[in-house]
């Protein structure tokens, strides 16, 4: 059974490219365009990993992460989350990791192939 990856990104183009690449690595994908939908899909859909952008409508990425990490349901609470963002200062990375993110990726510094590789490596460990 292939892993399900939830891609939360409001820019359609980027979302598409990302989705295609993840799919090409053999994963299943789902998408959300805003924070509310993302939260819903995490709680209900229980993805195996979430690629989470920060600047999204309604709830932003950090808020979604906070909410997830505060849930009762242990499995959902511990859903792996990679922050995918273009906010790239050191303290943002630290903040994200402190909040419970599993990794922090800067979109401008990475390409979709590398994202997929990171996902793969995460599942290997």
């Amino acid at each position, binding site marked *: 059974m292939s892993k399900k990856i939830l891609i939360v990104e*409001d*820019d359609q*183009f*980027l979302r598409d*490219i*990302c989705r*295609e690449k993840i799919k*090409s690595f053999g994963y299943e994908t789902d998408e959300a365009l805003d924070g509310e939908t993302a939260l819903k899909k995490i709680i209900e859909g229980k993805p195996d990993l979430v690629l989470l952008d920060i*600047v*999204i*409508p*309604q709830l932003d990425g950090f808020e979604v992460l906070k909410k997830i990490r505060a849930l009762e349901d242990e499995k959902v609470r511990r859903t792996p989350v990679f922050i995918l963002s*273009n*906010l*790239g*200062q050191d303290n943002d990375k630290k903040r994200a990791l402190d909040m419970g993110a599993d990794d922090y990726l800067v*979109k*401008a510094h990475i*390409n*979709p*192939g590398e994202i997929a590789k990171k996902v793969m490596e995460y599942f290997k460990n």
Partner: protein
Amino acid sequence: MKEIFYQLRFKILFLIVLEMVLFFGLIFYFLVQKIDKINDEQMKSYGDSLVRNLAEVFSENLFLKDYSVLQTEVNFFGENNPAIDKISIHSEGLADIEYFSGRLSEKSADGLLFSYPIIHYEKSAQKIINLGTVEIRLSPNEYQTILNKEKVRFFYLALFLIFIFSFVLYFLIRRSLFSPVLTMAKGMRIIASGDLNHRLEIKNKDELGFLAREINKMTDALRESQQIIENKNRSIRKAEESLLKNVSDLEIAKTKLEEERNKTFSILANLIDPVIVINENGELMLFNPATVKFFNFSTKDIGRKIIKEGNQKNIMSSFSLDALKKFFKYPFNFELKKEGEKNLNVVEELTIDFSKSENKNNNTEEQAIFKIITSPVTDVNGKILGYMKIFYDLTREKSVDRMKSEFISIAAHQLRGPLTGIKWSLFSVINGEIEKIGENLRGYLSRAYDVNEKIIRLVDELLDVSRIEEGRFIQSLAEVSVWDIIKEAVFSVSALAEKKKIEIKFKKPKNEFKIKADLEKINLVFQNLLENAIKYSFERSQIFIEIMERRESAEDFVQISVADSGIGIKKEEQPKIFSKFFRAKNARRLHTEGSGLGLFIVKNIVESHRGKIWFESDENKGATFFIQLPIIKK
């Protein structure tokens, strides 16, 4: 002076008169005596001449033998001459013709009888005929009377002469004595009144002249000594003047010093930056009003030891914010930035947090940041008088710095997005599945192209902003039609509007409005407004553009409004809409592109065209932006 003269004059006059009277009296007496003496002789000669005269007078009538006439003549003479006692004419053969006064003569008739023959001279015969003799007898008393009359006459004459002489003498004395003295007195008065150049002009060569000359000499001497005194006075006065000047210079210097001191105090008092000064013993000397905003100092604290006990050598480092902690009004943090070394000052940085304090202050700021420099205060010789702390307010600088870095980070972040798009596009083209490449190639590349355009736009905006800051946002003005601009702007956003199915409604106005504008910039303005309207509107909504004329303070304007019914602008955020890096929270949430520069640039352009821009809006009720520009009247 008159009185004196009066006395002298009369004294002398009196003496003269007295002398004259005596003199003349004496002379008169002697003369009278002489008159009396010669009385007898005179009488004799008088008698002789009289009888002779009578003889001559009577001779004619006697010759003619007019005896009655002769008698009348004889009576006539006798009566008219009181001195004659008796006249008798004796002639041969004739009775005596006589006159008799009737007086008894007191003296003996001798010596008083005079006779003379009466003769007649006959011219033809040249013969002298003796007719008779005339005899008179004089009365001495009567003669005396005549003589007395003469005496009286003489007396009066003498008196008259005395008076004349006295007057003359008086005038002579006056001239030689009184006048010179008077002149001298007048002259001396002039001299006494101060005119030491005046000289007595007395031409007399006598004692008075001598006196005048001596007085003149004395005046000369006086003048000389006065001159000397005057010179001495002058040099004293000069010394006095220069002394006074020195005193007044000192006064002026003192006043200037006071002024300087006051000026310094004023400067200190008006300094916005807090200043605290301690003396060499660490006692508080001075603090300015600005200090009291942050420190609990009062005048009672002057002289109080501020710093902890320490070496004299270390007073400056003891004079730290730590030592001043107890006076702080608000919570604060501070940091030592630079240790004081020889000749260098201590630098500390202080952050005051107003929001966390119980003391509510008037500051709208939440924070204040100060750079504090502590330095020694020395006199001209380098001796240390004390130490000074100056608080430089960096809050604004820091906030400007913060805004700048915020701007850069926003700009950078905004660049990142599109750059990521291009990157991932290219990646896909390079690394994508072969099958998929063909279909999507154009899509990927044109996406990259679009995104690249966005980057260029962003960079353009950044450049505009920097040009506005530098004042290089120069315009090239031309006469342009408002209608043309609006048309162009609507056209340029038509694709964008189409995507969201938004309709832009606008109508050509009755009048043609022309403005003087930089076409490129004005286009930018309306494009921007329309883009915003579209960006923040919901799908399938409408945007209305209205163009109308407006008159304000005697000038004519065109007013263009762009109204949408989109997300609107929250009241709290409305004040900052036009500011440089601002994007409203709801706009950011939409994650629509926007650097926050657009409206800043738009406002700048409008205002440099002497126009106005403003808006009306409510959250979720859309926004209407108004632009007013001056029109060119035909």
